[in-house]
């Protein structure tokens, strides 16, 4: 479902004397449907960079990133948007929303853009918010006013609203209490069971051990000094 | 005759104005710019109409001048005297006898004929002016038939007053093409604009525009399907001649709120009374004989 082939990436800092910082070389791996792969490596090794490249947020220098039939490394913006809408989900560490939009609609939005009727989308959103223990009295408020932990759970609910065939999870269990952590791991297991291919970053080793089928050490993709 | 060129204006100026008139006739409803001259009367007193009249007059013409339908008001009298003096033409108050009628704010009640020219004095020729102040833009709107704005004006009327409250200078569409301001005639007169046997010419002196309706031009008053145009008038008969189908002026007659309604067209009213018609307050027509 997800296949990364010989991926390279470097950053050119034009405003700092044109410094070129190579950050990734020859990254290759694949993830099958129903499989969860954990990216490991020390901080700064390029886990988040790799994930962002799969998401299309960082531009690849060369190589291929196939998600389904789409090569993210070569796709037009609109192809990536279609991919993100229907195929590829991403739970980042930060919630970014339009202020003023009620939480329930923030969570339902991924379904709404796919054409799911409002009631159905809201019902699914309500279900997820309930499971993640966001009190119902908060649903009509914008999550911008919420605590960090609440925002994180809203973000997870939004990420799991649609049953994406491929998912990227960046620290999904960070800063969650035991009960909510359990809920999130349950959501990941459900996604695997329905056949989703998942790439995750988990600093929580117990969580990683429980949901990940394989580990990939991104240190192997770190460019050697020339 | 005297020290004036015939009809005051020099021949070159009259040629220039006639060209503008011919162009206006060729493009009914289109406002033709012309080099308006200073006239020996203030703007607002009919300088546009006077120039059009001067350019059309021939020594054989019989001239009638009305102001709001009346032959005996200051404006009408002044203009009539002006042409008596500068052109020496015959004048009349009878609509049927006139070959050229200059008017301010009315169309005579008596039907016009192919032998007559009706010249309107126009203060503001641009029907879009109050909605779009830029002349360049209004001219472009005319050129492109971009007339949505005209209905916005009527919409605003209905929204504010429950009906189209525009009672005079009611906009019309000419031959399905140009939207035209018929000058401040009451909307009661609008139907008479259409299919008239007479040539109708419009002159705006200050604004330097001439436009025209050739005989038998189709003129439609703008409206909405659910708020159709109505040529309304005061719901009375003339108190002097008894006519029920004419445009009426309301006249306050005492300090106790007494009032009477009389035909605004004095010639029409007078001829009816001479023919024996008598209204509520009328006296059989000796005094107008």
């Amino acid at each position, binding site marked *: 479902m997800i296949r990364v082939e010989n991926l390279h990436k470097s950053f050119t800092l034009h405003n700092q004397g044109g410094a070129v910082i190579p950050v990734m070389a020859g990254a290759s791996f694949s993830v099958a449907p129903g499989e969860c792969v954990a990216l490991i490596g020390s901080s700064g090794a390029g886990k988040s960079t790799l994930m962002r490249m799969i998401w299309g947020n*960082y531009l690849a220098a060369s190589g291929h990133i196939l998600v389904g039939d789409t090569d993210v490394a070569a796709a037009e*913006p609109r192809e990536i*948007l279609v991919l993100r809408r229907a195929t590829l989900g991403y739970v980042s560490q930060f919630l970014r929303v339009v202020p003023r939009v009620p939480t329930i609609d923030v969570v339902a939005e991924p379904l709404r853009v796919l054409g799911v009727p409002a009631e159905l989308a809201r019902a699914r959103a309500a279900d997820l918010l309930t499971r993640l223990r966001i009190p119902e009295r908060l649903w009509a408020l914008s999550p911008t006013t919420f605590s960090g932990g609440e925002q994180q759970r809203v973000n997870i609910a939004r990420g799991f609203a649609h049953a994406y065939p491929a998912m990227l999870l960046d620290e999904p269990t960070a800063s969650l209490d035991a009960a909510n952590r359990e809920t999130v791991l349950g959501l990941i297991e459900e996604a695997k069971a329905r056949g989703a291919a998942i790439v995750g970053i988990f600093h929580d080793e117990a969580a990683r051990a429980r949901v990940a089928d394989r580990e990939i050490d991104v240190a192997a993709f770190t460019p050697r000094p020339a | 005759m005297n020290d004036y060129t015939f009809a005051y204006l020099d021949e070159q100026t009259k040629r220039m104005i006639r060209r503008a008139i011919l162009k206006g006739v060729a493009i009914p409803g289109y406002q033709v710019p012309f080099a308006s001259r200073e006239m020996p009367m203030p703007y607002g007193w009919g300088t546009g109409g006077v120039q059009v009249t001067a350019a059309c007059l021939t020594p054989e013409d019989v001239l009638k001048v009305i102001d709001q339908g009346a032959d005996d008001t200051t404006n009408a009298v002044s203009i009539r005297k002006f042409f008596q003096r500068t052109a020496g033409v015959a004048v009349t108050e009878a609509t049927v006898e006139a070959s050229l009628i200059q008017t301010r704010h009315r169309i005579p009640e008596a039907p016009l004929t192919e032998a007559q020219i009706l010249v309107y004095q126009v203060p503001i020729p641009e029907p879009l002016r109050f909605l779009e102040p830029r002349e360049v833009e209004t001219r472009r709107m005319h050129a492109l038939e971009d007339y949505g704005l005209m209905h*916005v004006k009527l919409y605003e009327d209905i*929204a504010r007053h429950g009906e189209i409250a525009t009672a005079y200078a009611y906009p019309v569409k000419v031959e399905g093409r140009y939207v035209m301001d018929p000058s401040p005639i009451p909307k009661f007169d609008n139907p008479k604009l259409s299919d008239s046997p007479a040539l109708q010419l419009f002159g705006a002196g200050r604004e330097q525009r001439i436009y025209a309706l050739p005989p038998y031009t189709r003129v439609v008053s703008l409206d909405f399907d659910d708020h159709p145009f109505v040529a309304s008038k005061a719901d009375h008969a003339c108190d002097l001649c008894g006519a029920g189908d004419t445009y009426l002026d309301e006249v306050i007659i005492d300090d106790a709120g007494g009032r009477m309604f009389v035909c605004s067209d004095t010639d029409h009213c007078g001829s009816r009374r001479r023919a024996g018609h008598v209204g509520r307050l009328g006296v059989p027509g000796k005094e107008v004989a």
Partner: protein
Amino acid sequence: MMMATGSAAPLFSVRGLTKRYGARIGCADVGFDLFPGEVMGIVGESGSGKSTLLNCLAGHLVPDAGKVIFDTRTDGPRDTLTMSEPERRMLARTDWAFVHQNPRDGLRMGVSAGGNVGERLMAVGARNYGAIRATALDWLGRVEIAADRIDDRPSGFSGGMQQRLQIARNLVTGPRLVFMDEPTGGLDVSVQARLLDLLRGLVREMGLSAIIVTHDLAVVRLLADRLMVMKGGHVVEQGLTDQVLDDPQHAYTQLLVSSVLQV
């Protein structure tokens, strides 16, 4: 609900668009395709040519070279630059819309809110007062203006309300392409948020394509699918909005992004 993007044919194709002001460049050799349902942001600092470009695209300025091809409902793709003026005007009041930064430029301040919304309908031949008013009421509701303000003039409205009225006035004929020039400029931050939310909803519900010129990177982050970065009249970078903002390739874009506090 419309399914945005993914359609095969572009709605709007621009090729080699160039506008000079004497020796100075307004915009040079700009080209892109915009697909149905796509929202594209154009960013750049003042004088970068983004407003010149927008005005050339919308037919307010005549470019010196290039093609601006719009997929018309009746005749398929047509170069709007070679259309006759009446055709272009018709397009401008049916399938296109233009939202000005200053609502006073896009509204008739002496005409009631209802008249402002109804104008485009009347311009394309609507002649039933009751129907026009009903549509105007519906649209005032969609942009969150109370029904009892329908007969008030916009001069008495707040800046945010005026801007929402301008949006209603533009979208009432169901356009397919909307040009926006700094639509949230000059508004309070809280009012901006409400407007952005409204625009996002309308874009999604109506399946609108839009081109938004702004210098506010937060606005494009929230509204635009794609981003075009301009400098000195040239497009220096374009791509997916979050990619351009998070992994800018061009020196100018890097400077632009790093100059902004946390977007």
